[in-house]
C-alpha cells in the first residue's frame, strides 16, 4: 500500500472538520450572542448530517469493503497514518452520530446557562466520536477516543442535574480506567507487530500469536467494555445519564456507549480473532447477565433517567451478545442494534429532557397523568418505550431478532435466559409509561404547555428514523452485512 491514497474529495475529513470548524466558529462568537451560537451550531451539525446522508447514499454496498479511503503517512518513524475510511460497520455509526448531534443541538435550543461553552464542548466531544468512528489507525483511534472522553466531565459537572459532581467524577474515572487498559494493549500490539505501523489492516494482515491475542483481547474487551456498560462495569452509566444535561445524555447514551462496542468490534475482534473465540463465552455470559440484570434493576427505579440508563445497560447487553456469537447474523444484529438503540435512546432522553425542563423533576411518583397535559411530549416517550420493548416494525425489533437467533444457536442457555429478559423489559417500560403518563390529570403540571412544533421537529426526526428502518431494514442491513460477511468468515 502506498503511503498516500486519496481518492477525490476527502469527505470523511470534511465531516470531521464540520465539528472542528464548528468549535472554532463558536469560540469566536461573543458569549452573549446566544441565539447566533445556537444557529451556528445547528448549521454545522446540519452540514455534518448532510454529508453523512450523502455518504450513506454514495456508499456502494454491493462492492462492500473500505470506501472513501484517505490514507496519508503522518509520522513515519512510528508508522502513524491519517487513515480514514468507511465500511458497513462504521457507516451506520457515522450516520447515527450525525443524527444525534443534530437532534441533540436542536433539543438544547432553550439552554440559557453558559451557552457558548456548552456548544463548544459538545462539538469537541463529537469531533472525538467522529474521529473514532472513521479512523482506521490505532493511534488516531485512541487519540480521538480520549478526545471524546474529556469534555464529558465539564459537560456533566457544569450543566448537569442530580449528583452532578459525583456522576461526572465516576464516569471520568471509569472511562479513564478503560483507557488505561486500551493504551497498553494497543502499544503491545504495535510492538508485537514489528512492522512499525499503527495501520489497523496492516496489523490484521500480520496476525498475532494465540497468546498475544488472548491477552490483548481481554484488555481491549474490558477497556472498551466499560464504555459499552458491560456488566458489572455498568454502574457509571445510569449515574452519568442521570447527572448529564439532555443533549449530553443523548450523545452519551446514543453514541458514546456505541464507541465501546465499536472498539471491541473494530479493534479487538479484528486483530484478535483467536482471542475472541477464546473469550467469547465470557462475553456472552456478561452480556446475558447484563440484559436480564439491567431490566430487573430498571424495575425498581423511580427516576426517569435511571430507568432509561438501566434499559441502556440491558440493550447494550444485546449488542454484546450479538458480537459474542461471532456469526454473520449475530454481528449484523449487533451493529444494527447499535444504530437502532442509539436513535431510540436519543429519543428517550430528548423526551425526558423536555419533561424535566418544564416540571423540574424526573422522579416518577411526582409526575403522573402527563398525557393529559402534554399528549404530544408523552407520545414521543411512549413511542421510544415501545421501541425499547421490541415492538415489531421498529428498527430495534429486527436487530434483536437477528441477535437472538444467533445467540440461541451459539449459546442456547444464555440465549433463552436473555429472551426471558424481554418479558421483564416489557414490564418495566410499561410500568414507567403507566406511572408517568397515565392516571388522573395532575393539577401541578396543568399550566405546562405541550411541545411546540419547532421543538417537536427533532423528536419527529428520531421517530421517523426508528419507523423507517423498522419498515425497511434492508436499507441498513445490506450495508452492514456487506462488511460483516467477510469479517465473520475469519472466525
Amino acid at each position, binding site marked *: 500500500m502506498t503511503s498516500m491514497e486519496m481518492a477525490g474529495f476527502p469527505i470523511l475529513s470534511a465531516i470531521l472538520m464540520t465539528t472542528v470548524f464548528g468549535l472554532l466558529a463558536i469560540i469566536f462568537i461573543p458569549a452573549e450572542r446566544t441565539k447566533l451560537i445556537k444557529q451556528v451550531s445547528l448549521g454545522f451539525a446540519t452540514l455534518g448530517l448532510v454529508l453523512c446522508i450523502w455518504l450513506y447514499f454514495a456508499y456502494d454496498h454491493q462492492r462492500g469493503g473500505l470506501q472513501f479511503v484517505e490514507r496519508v503517512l503522518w509520522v513515519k518513524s512510528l508508522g502513524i497514518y491519517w487513515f480514514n475510511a468507511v465500511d458497513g460497520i462504521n457507516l451506520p455509526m457515522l450516520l447515527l452520530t450525525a443524527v444525534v448531534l443534530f437532534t441533540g443541538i436542536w433539543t438544547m435550543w432553550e439552554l440559557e446557562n453558559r451557552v457558548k461553552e456548552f456548544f463548544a464542548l459538545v462539538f469537541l466531544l463529537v469531533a472525538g466520536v467522529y474521529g473514532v468512528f472513521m479512523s482506521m489507525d490505532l493511534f488516531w483511534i485512541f487519540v480521538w477516543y480520549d478526545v471524546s472522553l474529556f469534555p464529558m466531565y465539564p459537560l456533566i459537572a457544569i450543566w448537569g442535574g442530580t449528583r452532578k459532581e459525583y456522576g461526572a467524577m465516576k464516569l471520568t474515572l471509569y472511562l479513564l480506567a478503560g483507557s488505561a487498559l486500551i493504551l497498553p494493549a494497543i502499544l503491545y500490539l504495535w510492538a508485537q507487530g514489528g512492522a512499525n505501523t499503527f495501520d489497523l489492516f496492516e496489523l490484521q494482515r500480520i496476525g498475532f500469536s494465540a497468546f498475544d491475542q488472548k491477552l490483548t483481547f481481554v484488555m481491549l474487551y474490558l477497556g472498551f467494555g466499560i464504555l459499552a456498560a458491560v456488566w458489572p462495569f455498568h454502574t457509571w452509566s445510569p449515574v452519568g445519564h442521570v447527572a448529564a444535561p439532555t443533549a449530553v445524555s443523548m450523545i452519551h447514551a446514543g453514541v458514546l456507549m456505541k464507541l465501546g462496542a465499536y472498539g471491541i468490534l473494530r479493534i479487538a475482534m479484528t486483530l484478535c480473532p483467536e482471542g475472541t473465540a477464546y473469550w467469547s463465552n465470557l462475553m456472552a455470559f456478561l452480556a446475558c447477565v447484563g440484559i436480564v440484570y439491567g431490566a430487573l434493576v430498571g*424495575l425498581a427505579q423511580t427516576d426517569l433517567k435511571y430507568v432509561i440508563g438501566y434499559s441502556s445497560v440491558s440493550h447494550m447487553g444485546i449488542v454484546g451478545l450479538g458480537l459474542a456469537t461471532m456469526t454473520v*447474523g449475530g454481528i*449484523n444484529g449487533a451493529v444494527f442494534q447499535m444504530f437502532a438503540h442509539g436513535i431510540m435512546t436519543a429519543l428517550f432522553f430528548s423526551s425526558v429532557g423536555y419533561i424535566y425542563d418544564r416540571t423540574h423533576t424526573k422522579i416518577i411518583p411526582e409526575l403522573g397523568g402527563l398525557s393529559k397535559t402534554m399528549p404530544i411530549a408523552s407520545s414521543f416517550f411512549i413511542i421510544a418505550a415501545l421501541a425499547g420493548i421490541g415492538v415489531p416494525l421498529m428498527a430495534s*425489533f429486527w436487530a434483536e431478532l437477528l441477535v437472538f437467533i444467533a445467540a*440461541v444457536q451459539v449459546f442456547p442457555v444464555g440465549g433463552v435466559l436473555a429472551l426471558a429478559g424481554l418479558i421483564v423489559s416489557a*414490564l418495566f417500560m*410499561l410500568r414507567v409509561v403507566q406511572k408517568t403518563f397515565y392516571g388522573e390529570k395532575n393539577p401541578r403540571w396543568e399550566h405546562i404547555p405541550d411541545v411546540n412544533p419547532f421543538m417537536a421537529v427533532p423528536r419527529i426526526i428520531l421517530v421517523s428514523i426508528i419507523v423507517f428502518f423498522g419498515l425497511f431494514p*434492508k436499507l441498513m442491513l445490506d450495508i452492514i452485512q456487506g462488511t460483516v460477511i467477510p469479517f465473520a468468515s475469519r472466525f
Partner: protein
Amino acid sequence: MDALPRDPVLLATVLGTSLPFLSMAVILIFTRANRQLSSRISVAAIGCSLASALFLLITLRAAPGAIQYQTEWFSSGNFNVAFGYYLDPLSLLMLTIVAVIAFLVQVYSLGYMAGDPGFSRYYAFQSLFAWAMMNMVIAGSLLQLFIFWELVGLASYLLIGFYYEKWSASQAGKKAFVMTRVGDVGFFLGIIILVIGFGNLGIPELNTAGASHSIPQQLITVSALLILCGVIGKSAQFPLLTWLPDAMEGQTPVSALLHSATMVAAGVYMFSRIFPFFSASPEAMTAALAIGTVTMILASTMAMVTYDIKQVWAYSTISQLGLMVMALAAGGYFAGVYHLTTHAGFKALLFLCSGIFIHSFHTNDMRIIGKEGGRRLTIPTVCMTIGALALAGVFPFSGFFSKEAILGVLAAQPGKIWLYAGLIGALLTAYYSFRLIFYIVLPQGGISASSDSGHHEPSHDEEHHGYIFWAMAVPVIILAGLTLILGLFFEHPLQGFISGMLGHGSASVLLVQHTTPEAHGIGHELLLALGVSAGLFGIALAWFEFGRKDSSRTGFLSCFPSIWRLFDLRWFMDIFFRKALDTAVYAGLTSLFTKNDRRIIDGAIDGICFFTEAGGRLFSFLQSGMLQYNLLVMALGAGVAILFFLV
C-alpha cells in the same frame, strides 16, 4: 409492484389490508381535531377492507389452490425474511370475519363513542387494530404472522388502556400486554428454533414438512410446544387467562372486537394456520387438548358467579376459546375453525347488546339492569337472547352446529374424558348465559317503580342519541341475522370451502383424515341428544334458579361459600401471579440486584476511591513543608534501606 395494477386479487389484498394503516396515520397526524372526519375516514377504510375481503372470498372461492405473493423483505447471512400474502380458504374466511366484525364495531362505535373527547384517537387505534389483524391473517410466513401478532397486542394494549386516566384501565392494558408477552416469548423462541433447525418459516412449507415428517420429530415437538405458548397467551388459555376479564376495562365495542371475536381468536387462528405442523407432534396436541379442557372448565366456573355482564361474556369467551383449542387439538380442523367463525358472530353480538344496556343504564351489573327495566330495550334483549341461545348450543342457532361438530370430534378421541368435559362445559355455558338472561328479562319483583315512572333512560336517549341508537342497533340486528343463518345454511358450504381447497395441498392426507371425524363407539344420534340435552339442562337449571316466579335467585353455588369464593377469585390465579411477581421479582431479584449495584459494585468502587483518597491524605502528612520532618523521614528511610542491604 408492476403486477399490482394488472392483478385484481393482489390489488384487493394490498388495498384491503393497508388502507386502515393509512387511515390511522391520517387521523393521528392530520384530523385529530375533526372528530366527524376522523371517524368517517376510519369507517370508509374498513369499509373498503370489507369490500376487498368479500371480493377476494367470492373470486377465490373456487380457486384450485392457495395463492401466494412473496417478495424479499431483507436477508441477513443465510436467513431470508420474506414479506408476502398467503390466500387460502382459511385466511380468506378469517379475513372476512375480521373485516365484517371490525366494520360493524366501527359503525356501532359511532353511536357508542359519540361525544367522547378521545373520539379521533379511538378511531385511529381501531384502524391500527384492523390493519394489524388483517395482515396477521394473510401473512405468508410465521415470522410475518408473529410481527403482526405483536402489533395486534399493541393495538389491544392501547385500546384497553384507552381511558388511561383511569388507573384500572391502564393497569389492565399493562397486564394484558405483559401476560401475552410471556406467551409470545415462547412463540418467539419457537420461531427462532425453527429458523435454526428448519431454516424456512413459510406457512405452506411448514405445513408440508409437518405432514410429511421431513423434519426431525424432536424439533417439531419442541417448536410446536413453544409456539403453543403463544396460543396460550393470546387466546387466554390456562394459566395465562386472567388478563382477558380485566381487559373488559376497555369500552364495550372494543371488548366485542378484540376480546371476543378477533384478537383473542388470533391464537386459535394461528393454531389452525399451521395445523398440519402441530398435528405432526402428538405431544403438543395432547398438551393443547389438556390445556384447552382445563381452560374451558375453569372459565365456565368463573362465569357462574359474577354479576358483571361483560365479565360473564369475557369468561365465556375464554371457555369457548378453550373449546376451540380442544377441537383443534383433537384433530377437528373444521370443527375448530367453524366454531371460531360462529363464535366470532354471536360473541360480538352478545357484547354489542351488552354495550347498549351499559350505555343506557350506566352500569355493568345485571341485577340493576334487570331491575331498571332492561327488557324494555326490545332489540338488544331479543338479540342478546339469540346470542345466548347460540352460545348455549340450541338449535337452530349457529353455535349448535359448531358445538355439535366439536363434540363429534371429541367423541372420536380414544379417551372419553374429553367428551365428558365438553358436555360439562356445554352445560355450564348454558347455565351461566341464561342466568344472565333471566336476571335481565325476569328481574326479581318486576321492574322497579322509580325507573318505571320516570322514563329517565329512554327519554335521555331520544334527546341526545336519537339516530345513534340505530347506529348501535343495526350492527346488532345484522349480527343476530348472521347467527341465525350461519349454522342453518352455511355449515356444508363452509366445510366444503375450508376442506376442499386443502385437498390440493400436500398436507391434504392428514387434514382429510382429521376433518371427517367419526364417533367411535357413540352413535351420531346419541351424541346429538347428549349435546342438546346438556344445553337444555343448563338452561332449565338456570330457569329453575333464576327464571321461575318465586325462585331464590341466588344459585346453588351460594350454598357453598368457599367454592363461590374460589370461583369469584378466579381460582386464586391472580393472587398467585401477584404474589409470585411481588416476591420473586420485586422483592426478590430486583431488590437483590439493586442492592448489589448500590452496595457491592458501587460500594467497592467508592471504597477504592475512599482508600486512595485516604492514602493520599495520610501521605500528605509527610509533605508538611517542615524541613525537620522531611529530614527525619529521609534519615529513617535511609536507615531502613541500609538495614535492608546490610542484612
